[in-house]
């Protein structure tokens, strides 16, 4: 579905171009002609890096012989050995703390949190250490670790398995927060995250894990970690989303097109640091912005985007900024969860409201 289109207004920020910048890294592997799912793209990226960089290792609960509860690491321990792909004891503090120690001493750990709801015990090591090691030691040590987090709702999972908690990390200096929304971007952004010299929280919208397939070239080419991707161009309203909501936003754009409203769709992709320029440039043309966020509304990451628009784009805006978000309550258990998640319908309504202005 959503292959990456070039950003006409700012070609340097298009994904294709960025990939070209990183092409030198490619080992010239053959293209995978078979379309793969987002989770398979993650496995493929992990395998690529394990293959090409001996300092990379994968650790987490059940990532070994079991291949992870989502199968993201399927086959990796068999292929690269238990020294490179390690099951950890059942403790998230341990996973985070060991990763900091490993990263500080020359390794590149790619840790897995089994579900979004289990990252909280990792927060201390991520904020107090991973995000600070370079700054604290004036560059003497640094912490090139990745934490992969299956993220968000919509898969009828048990309690604590459906959380959109990126706001825990987006106010933290020194971290990068990345969220892919297609198999291609999952592959390219994960490679970039692993090669990054500083810690990256890489949140994977689990609702998209197996939702559709895409051909992903297994060429070792990373995507840039500091750009938003313009996935669809439009003139009347800018829809800004990340993670699973990118798909809803694209569907909303289709629906809006039928009503004669032309929506531009931006995948934020990297939340921190934020490429606000791409968003501002789009809003300068459309004059309207609908931000779509799965997390609870108040003080979610969407607020930052809206705030920057209030600061920098006030004279461009023809309509008030709209946020379509989860509600200010916990995502319900699965019988009601779809009532909680931002829907195509809610995005369309918000875009219509915006389009009615100006």
């Amino acid at each position, binding site marked *: 579905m959503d292959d990456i289109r070039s950003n006409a207004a700012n070609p340097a920020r298009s994904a294709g171009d960025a990939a070209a910048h990183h092409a030198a890294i490619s080992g010239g592997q053959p293209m995978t002609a078979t379309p793969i799912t987002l989770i398979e793209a993650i496995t493929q990226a992990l395998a690529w890096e394990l293959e090409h960089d001996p300092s990379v290792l994968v650790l987490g*609960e*059940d990532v*070994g*012989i*079991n*291949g992870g*509860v989502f199968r993201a690491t399927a086959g990796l321990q068999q292929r690269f050995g238990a020294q490179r792909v390690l*099951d950890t*004891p*059942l*403790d998230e*503090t*341990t996973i985070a703390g060991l990763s900091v120690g490993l990263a500080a001493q020359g390794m590149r750990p790619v840790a897995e949190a089994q579900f979004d*709801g*289990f990252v*909280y*015990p990792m927060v201390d090591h991520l904020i107090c250490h991973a995000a600070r090691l370079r700054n604290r030691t004036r560059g003497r040590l640094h912490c090139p670790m990745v934490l992969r987090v299956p993220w968000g709702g919509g898969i*009828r*999972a*048990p*309690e*604590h*398995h459906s959380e959109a908690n990126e706001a825990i990390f987006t106010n933290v200096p020194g971290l990068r927060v990345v969220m892919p929304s297609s198999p291609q971007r999952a592959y390219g952004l994960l490679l970039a995250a692993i090669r990054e010299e500083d810690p990256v929280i890489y949140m994977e919208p689990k609702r998209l894990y197996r939702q559709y397939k895409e051909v992903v070239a297994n060429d070792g080419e990373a995507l840039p970690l500091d750009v938003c991707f313009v996935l669809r161009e439009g003139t009347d309203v800018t829809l800004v989303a990340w993670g699973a909501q990118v798909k809803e936003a694209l569907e909303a754009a289709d*629906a809006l097109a*039928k*009503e004669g409203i032309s929506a531009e769709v931006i995948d934020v992709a990297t939340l921190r640091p934020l490429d606000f320029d791409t968003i501002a440039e789009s809003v300068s043309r459309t004059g309207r912005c609908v931000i779509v966020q799965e997390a609870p*509304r*108040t003080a979610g990451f969407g607020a930052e985007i809206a705030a920057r628009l209030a600061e920098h784009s006030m004279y461009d805006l023809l309509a008030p900024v709209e946020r379509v978000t989860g*509600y*200010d*309550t*916990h995502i*319900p*258990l*699965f*019988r*009601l*969860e779809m*009532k*909680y998640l931002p829907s*195509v*319908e*809610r995005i*369309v309504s918000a875009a219509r409201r915006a389009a009615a202005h100006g």
Partner: protein
Amino acid sequence: MTLAASFQIDYLQYLGADGQPVREFPPALRDPAVLLPLFKQMLYVRAFDTKAIALQRTGKLGTYAPCLGHEATHVGIGAAMAEGDVYAPSYREYGVLFMRGVRPREVLLYWGGDERGNDFQEGAARHDFPFCVPISTQCLHAAGAALAFKMRGEPHLAVATCGDGGTSKTDFYAALNSAGAYELPLILGVVNNGWAISVPRSAQTGAQTLAQKGLAGGLFCLQVDGNDLVAVLEAMRIASERARSGQGGSVIEFMTYRLSDHTTADDARRYRDDAEVKAAWEREPMTRLRTWLTAQGAWSEAEEASWKEECERLVNIEVDAYLATPVQPVEAMFDYLYADPPPELLAQRAAVIAMEQRPQEHRHG
């Protein structure tokens, strides 16, 4: 070198896997009439478990965590607890929950994606902690409850259970540390079923026993055959008496086995030998107790057949109640968050209700 400290961890077993006593039962447990109702309860739990898996397989339940093989440990723990005590479960101890008053329909609602599954309506369970998914965090909640009892001078105790994997979790250590520091009436029951999803017990820790983790907090430690109901009951009696008499907390390791997959979303064949499972079936808790009760003349095949039918009937009543429970109204998302919900939340609630009430054709496109 001189000796700074020395310790012993005992292992408790009364009824062998073959149904023969390995030593004389504790006096209070010698009368088959004492064990019989618990055996029946174990059968009931197994009937429930079987039915729940069937519901999941037919799309009528979400992911479910079976308890096959844990019946003696769970029922034994439940039997040892009193009304004013507090229990903090993880997610698979239906045998304890039922003894506390939780109704099977509540368990089904929980795994069916409905918060009302944690709104335990009956018995001692009304004050118990809800299901707890973040591993071992419940251990600290139980410690907090035990601290409340201690401060109020109440004679109750708190019990938390976690798995073998759960003993690696920092919260487990924090709970035993505070139990020792405050001498809390707390029992941490470790249900060692050999596996934490795909990770075997041997990969969790270098400790020879999980019971000995209690030494880190100066607690009383005991390892028990968790498939032997008699040993489970006796261990709980010892630890409860210690707790109620101000002698502080315990860690009890119940050795059992997960005869099932981890959950219905798991496929244990990916990581576990069939031979191991087969061997574990030789030690499972039901057969040995049946053998013993039958030998005592307290049980028969005919009784078992009719009790199983009765279990089937009782479980079906619960399943029907579960299936007949309508989905909560959409505003239920908002209604239990605060005692006193803020205006902005009430506005969101009103908007959602309004959206629900719009006719369907207006809602799409």
